[in-house]
């Protein structure tokens, strides 16, 4: 309970701190998160990893059934809880420096705390409905945090895009929930695990996978994630690298039992496609955060693919390692951005500090950052002695465990992705830290840029340390540790090490003599024109449809009333009975029609008594004739 409530209290406290003392916010929030970390550690040590634990209590009655809210703790949960709380704590701490002086710092920490809470909700909950609720809520906090700097148009747009795309994915989740409820009558994961669905398994699985794909930025729903980098960098580290995007992977692992083989194949294909496209796109970009974002996309693709291939433990392990090294990378990137922003503020220069074309040679100015970046980058690349190597190894060996042709193919693609990963990581580090930028006006100022303050440096260092091998296992070449067991065959180790080294060599040779990163291909920069495709296929049609509806509303539904009235009016014009009295506000069919009739009746009322008598007599005659006839 401490784990869950601490971030929430942090959020609430942050909201309550008076505006004047907003610097206090970061302090209290970080402290609360520290409590959460402590709680998580206690949980991890007491809960044990082997025996799942389950507490629940009824929440509300749904039809004849009861929806309960409860906590379900197993191995994956423990891992996730640790990851979430630890990364969150460090991000809180880091933010204390990064966001210092921001006007809306209270809102920032509120949302950060709220996010952590809802993220833990996803992780701990035993109930798909509650998972879905938290799922939506992390989307909301993500929306708020991406859009934190609301004055920036791209932040505003990116936040909307992120939320919309997640929302569309959530439709799949809703559909999945509907199927689950129809066929099982319960949302309880433990119950579902034992009794399963009666029918519709593939539909349910694919529907839920749509949500996972949106949340974990899988092909083809990943385009929101690079845009989401418009948010503050710590947020990117926490949400869009370490935790929220991993929620999909986690959920997939948790309800793996709901996925029949066919659905798993789809998952694998989507994961691999994501891994490859993400890695390729990372090569095509210049924005430091976007590159990291695509890297995240790619790595998530690997995890999903692993899950699709049945490597649950390995995928979760990679999730864990990825969380640390990717958070470290983001925080380091944030440090660069933060520092250079400060520098810009003093010199008054304006250039895009996130564009690697504007950077270079930062190695000397920011040694700590460089070190962190190097370690985490190495981990990402899967160089031995770093955690990333071990987790990738675990995945690879799990995939190959089956030993069939499909496994081989998956593994091959996996290695290609790894190759690309190494390449883009090298490219990034090379151009940011190592390659000298000659002739740049800003170069002078860089010499003197200070390293970031301690509150920011400390989390970076810790995360970098956490990216080393010991986090998985004391043996740097084995992934069989506290979390996973098993060994990789020597062949896979050799092959993968070979691929990594080969890639390093290739990258060094390729980038060595370039003074500036070049555009690889438009198709990569524009991420395969997916956004354009969405614009054509979804956004614009909906916009048109919406405009059409509005027009229909005004023109046809109202127009039906008005229009048929206009016909009457035209008639009335012709006959000469129209007068301005009609235009008095009773604009509707009935009134027009009746007033037309009324005009007819009134024509008898000419004021001429002879006519009166004539019409009265004629009326009687006609009445008689009518009755007789």
């Amino acid at each position, binding site marked *: 309970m401490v784990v869950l409530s601490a971030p929430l209290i942090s959020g609430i406290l942050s909201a309550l701190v008076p505006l004047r003392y907003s610097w206090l916010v970061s302090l209290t929030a970080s402290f609360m998160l520290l409590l959460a970390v402590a709680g998580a550690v206690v949980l991890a040590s007491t809960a044990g990893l082997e025996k799942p634990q389950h507490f629940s209590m009824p929440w509300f009655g749904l039809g004849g059934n009861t929806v309960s809210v409860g906590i379900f703790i197993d191995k994956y949960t423990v891992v996730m809880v640790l990851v979430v709380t630890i990364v969150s704590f460090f991000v809180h701490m880091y933010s204390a420096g990064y966001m210092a002086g921001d006007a809306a710092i209270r809102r920032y920490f509120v949302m950060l705390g709220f996010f952590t809470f809802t993220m833990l909700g996803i992780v701990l909950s035993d109930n798909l409905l509650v998972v879905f609720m938290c799922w939506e809520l992390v989307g909301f906090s993500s929306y708020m945090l991406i859009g934190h700097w609301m004055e920036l148009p791209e932040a505003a747009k990116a936040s909307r895009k992120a939320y919309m795309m997640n929302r569309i994915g959530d439709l799949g989740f809703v559909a999945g929930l509907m199927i689950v409820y129809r066929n099982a009558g319960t949302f309880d994961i433990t119950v579902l695990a034992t009794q399963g669905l009666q029918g519709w398994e593939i539909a349910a699985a694919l529907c839920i996978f749509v949500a996972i794909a949106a949340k974990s930025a899988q092909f083809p729903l990943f385009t929101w994630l690079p845009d989401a980098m418009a948010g503050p960098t710590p947020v990117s580290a926490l949400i869009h690298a370490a935790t929220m995007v991993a929620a999909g992977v986690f959920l997939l692992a948790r309800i793996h039992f709901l996925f029949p083989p066919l659905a798993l194949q789809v998952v694998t294909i989507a994961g691999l496609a994501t891994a490859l496209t993400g890695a390729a796109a990372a090569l095509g970009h210049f924005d430091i955060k976007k590159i990291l974002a695509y890297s995240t996309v790619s790595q998530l693709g690997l995890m999903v693919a692993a899950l699709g291939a049945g490597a649950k433990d390995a995928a979760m392990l990679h999730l864990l390692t990825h969380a640390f090294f990717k958070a470290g990378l983001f925080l380091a990137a944030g440090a660069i951005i933060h520092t250079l922003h400060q520098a810009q503020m003093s010199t008054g220069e304006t250039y895009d500090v996130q564009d690697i074309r504007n950077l270079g040679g930062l190695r000397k100015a920011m040694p700590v950052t460089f070190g962190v970046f190097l370690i985490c980058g190495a981990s990402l690349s899967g160089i031995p002695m770093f955690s990333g190597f071990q987790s990738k190894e675990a995945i690879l060996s799990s995939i190959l465990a089956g030993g069939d042709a499909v496994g081989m193919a998956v593994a091959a693609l996996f290695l290609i992705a790894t190759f690309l990963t190494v390449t883009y990581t090298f490219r990034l580090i090379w151009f940011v830290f190592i390659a000298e930028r000659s002739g740049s006006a800003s170069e002078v100022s860089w010499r003197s840029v200070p390293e970031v303050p301690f509150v920011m440096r400390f989390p970076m260092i810790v995360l970098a340390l956490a990216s080393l091998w010991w986090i998985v296992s004391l043996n740097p070449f084995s992934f069989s540790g506290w979390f996973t067991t098993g060994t990789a065959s020597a062949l896979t180790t050799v092959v993968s090490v070979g691929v990594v080294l080969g890639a390093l060599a290739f990258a060094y040779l390729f980038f060595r003599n370039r003074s500036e990163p070049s555009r690889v291909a438009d198709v990569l920069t524009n991420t395969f024109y997916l956004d354009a495709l969405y614009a054509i296929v979804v956004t614009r049609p909906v916009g048109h449809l919406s405009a059409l509806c509005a027009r229909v509303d005004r023109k046809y539904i109202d127009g039906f009333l008005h229009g048929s009235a206009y016909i009457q009016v035209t008639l009335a014009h012709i006959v000469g009975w129209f007068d301005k009295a009609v235009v008095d506000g009773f604009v509707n069919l009935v009134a027009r029609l009746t007033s037309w009739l009324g005009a007819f009746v009134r024509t008898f009322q000419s004021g001429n008594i*002879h006519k009166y008598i*004539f019409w009265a007599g004629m009326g009687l005659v006609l009445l008689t004739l009518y009755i007789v006839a």
Partner: protein
Amino acid sequence: MIYAFYIFAFIAVAAAAGILFARRLFHAALLLLVCFLAVAGIYAVSYAEWVAVTQILVYAGGVVVIIIFGIMLTTRAPGRPTAISNSKWFSGLLLGLAVMGFLITLFLRETVGAPTVPLMDERFTLVNRFGIALMTDYLLPFEVAGLLLLITLVGAAVIAATRNKNTSS
């Protein structure tokens, strides 16, 4: 007697038609008088002497006189007779002929009931019977008719007594 009926009937219809075609209002009034008298004649041959007498007294003696009085009062220039202009010949003829044709067809097609010769009570003349009926069976209408006359008097007086200059909006 039937010849007398036809003669009276002819006179009445002719006089009525004359009104329709009369050029001058005064002539029309006089033709109406002729018509009334002829109708009185028809009453007389239909065993309704009392009605005939009333007809002559009230209509010929009263109504027509009032009307002639009215014609004179509404004559714009003294000495110049009031011409009556006509309008709506079409609608008038349409309505009148429709009613005429319709009703005559009906009358000729359907039997209304053959009149029988009245049996005269020897002891009382018709006038006697009228008197008694008027005071017994028809007492209420008689009184109401009196009231009607009173109201007519009051009403006519009100209308006539209002001296209203020809000031109008």
